[in-house]
């Protein structure tokens, strides 16, 4: 091969391998969500995680890709059936490689929602909203930032998707969990009860797999190996933020609850990863450390706030991890960016970037929450969103699928 072919080959290889790693995050999500919920709903939650990738594959291929990356206007791309319009070559990789990479990102956004709505959502309605998220909601806000839309034009910097992917999923999860209402038994006399998940082993395994996948998610967003220093830098910032998130949450839970708590610390690692995603290319390692530490602290208080004040029941912490920390991480770019062409306030870059980041965070939150309200209320008053009391008490596996996850 000549150097042109080699360059394309190398970049495509990197993008496809990164996509494989991001694909594997589906497994991580499935395990975390299964581990953090009760065994009577395990078949159901696994099933939802399998199906959202199946549906996401079809719907993002059908329409989502075009809506996100089609030229269109500042707000929406084009109707381009079956992902046939080429958006890859301009980036130096085949269209199908870019499509596949974007597909696994889209599926990540959709899968975030299932955790927050676990243990009480109708299977049928789940399939419905999951398809709509991958096909329409995610691609439109994605277009704003990555597809040539208005937020990208404004200079908003979201390198690998703290906002594009995680916040969108997180805010939809928030609305979904709120519209559904808490699980039976979650609140007694207005006080939150603990409903422990059935396996922290699955939870920890899932988090390790997600951490692994993030080494595709963040550095893979370079879409090539032209700048190896950048790629290696992203590995380091991503990893530091994750580690710092874990350590910070460990410390907070230890001080605050008297004992170091694994379930929360697992969320802390994820919080660090989500928060670094927007700025992994531009912040310094020390910046990454700071972002990770703050994310690890933030996630604890966010979970508490949702649980105790808002009384929104999010069994796996999806809102705090993806919504809150996605927003947080995006904003931090406005302060701590220092490289890869962007500079934040603290490094003398002025407030313009910060304003763009804030605008993006607010706009995407508004979009996701607005869409969520319409979507979930529409489902609630048509096919119904929540299973009956009896089904919930006896477990969704039993009534919705006739199949228990565990047998002798």
């Amino acid at each position, binding site marked *: 091969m000549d150097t042109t072919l080699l360059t394309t080959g190398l970049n495509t290889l990197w993008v496809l391998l990164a996509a494989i790693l991001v694909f594997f995050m589906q497994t991580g999500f499935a395990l975390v969500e299964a581990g953090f919920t009760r065994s009577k709903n395990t078949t159901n939650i696994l099933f939802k995680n399998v199906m959202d990738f199946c549906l996401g594959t079809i719907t993002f291929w059908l329409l989502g890709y075009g809506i996100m990356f089609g030229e269109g206007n500042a707000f929406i791309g084009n109707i381009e059936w079956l992902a046939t319009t080429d958006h890859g070559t301009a980036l130096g990789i085949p269209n199908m490689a870019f499509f596949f990479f974007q597909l696994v990102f889209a599926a990540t956004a959709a899968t975030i929602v299932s955790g927050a709505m676990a243990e009480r959502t109708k299977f049928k309605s789940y399939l419905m909203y999951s398809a709509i998220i991958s096909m329409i909601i995610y691609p439109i806000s994605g277009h704003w930032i990555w597809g040539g839309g208005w937020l990208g034009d404004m200079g908003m910097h979201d390198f690998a998707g703290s906002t594009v992917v995680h916040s969108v999923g997180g805010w939809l999860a928030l609305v979904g969990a709120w519209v559904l209402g808490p699980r039976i038994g979650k609140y007694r006399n207005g006080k*939150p*009860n*603990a*409903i*422990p*998940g059935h396996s922290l082993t699955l939870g920890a395994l899932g988090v390790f797999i997600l951490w692994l996948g993030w080494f595709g998610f963040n550095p893979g967003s370079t879409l090539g190996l032209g700048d190896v220093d950048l790629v290696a830098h992203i590995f380091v910032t991503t990893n530091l933020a994750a580690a710092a998130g874990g350590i910070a949450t460990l410390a907070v*839970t230890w001080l605050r*609850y*008297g*004992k170091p*708590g694994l*379930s*929360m610390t697992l*969320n802390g690692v994820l919080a660090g990863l989500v928060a670094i995603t927007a700025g992994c290319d531009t912040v310094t390692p020390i910046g990454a450390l700071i972002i990770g530490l703050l994310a690890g602290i933030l996630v*604890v208080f966010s*979970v*508490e706030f949702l*649980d*105790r004040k808002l009384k929104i029941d999010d069994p796996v*912490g999806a809102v705090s991890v993806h919504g809150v920390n996605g927003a947080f991480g995006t904003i931090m770019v406005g302060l701590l960016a220092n490289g890869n062409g962007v500079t934040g306030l603290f490094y003398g870059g002025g407030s313009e970037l910060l304003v763009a980041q804030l605008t993006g965070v607010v706009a995407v939150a508004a979009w996701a929450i607005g869409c969520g309200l319409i979507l979930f209320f529409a489902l609630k008053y048509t096919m119904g969103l929540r299973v009956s009391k009896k089904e919930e008490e006896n477990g969704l596996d039993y009534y919705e699928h006739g199949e228990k996850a565990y047998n002798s």
Partner: protein
Amino acid sequence: MIMKKIEAIIRVSQFEEVTEALHDIGIDFFTYWDVTGVGNEKSGAIYRATVYETRLIPRRVISFVCRDKFVDASIEAICKAAKTGEMGDGKIFVSTVDESVRIRTGERGPESLYIKE
């Protein structure tokens, strides 16, 4: 001869000691399973951001049928081996059994409880 059923609800952590204590007085056959006990003992627990107290404590039930004359010795042995002195050590209940059958041989009554071979 009257047969009695003894059911002891003990801490899982005392199981080995109780087994040995029973062995020492000649009780070598029993059945056990794990249960959850609700009683005086409480334990602090945390799950994600919720700190709570639970009264649901893991326990083990040891159940066996023996001849009348073993009852007192059994109670004594279990009490000694299962006791830690802290709340939650458990209970022993004794009740009457009308009939016992050894499935392998069809033997009935106290006879079915002896060690034979």
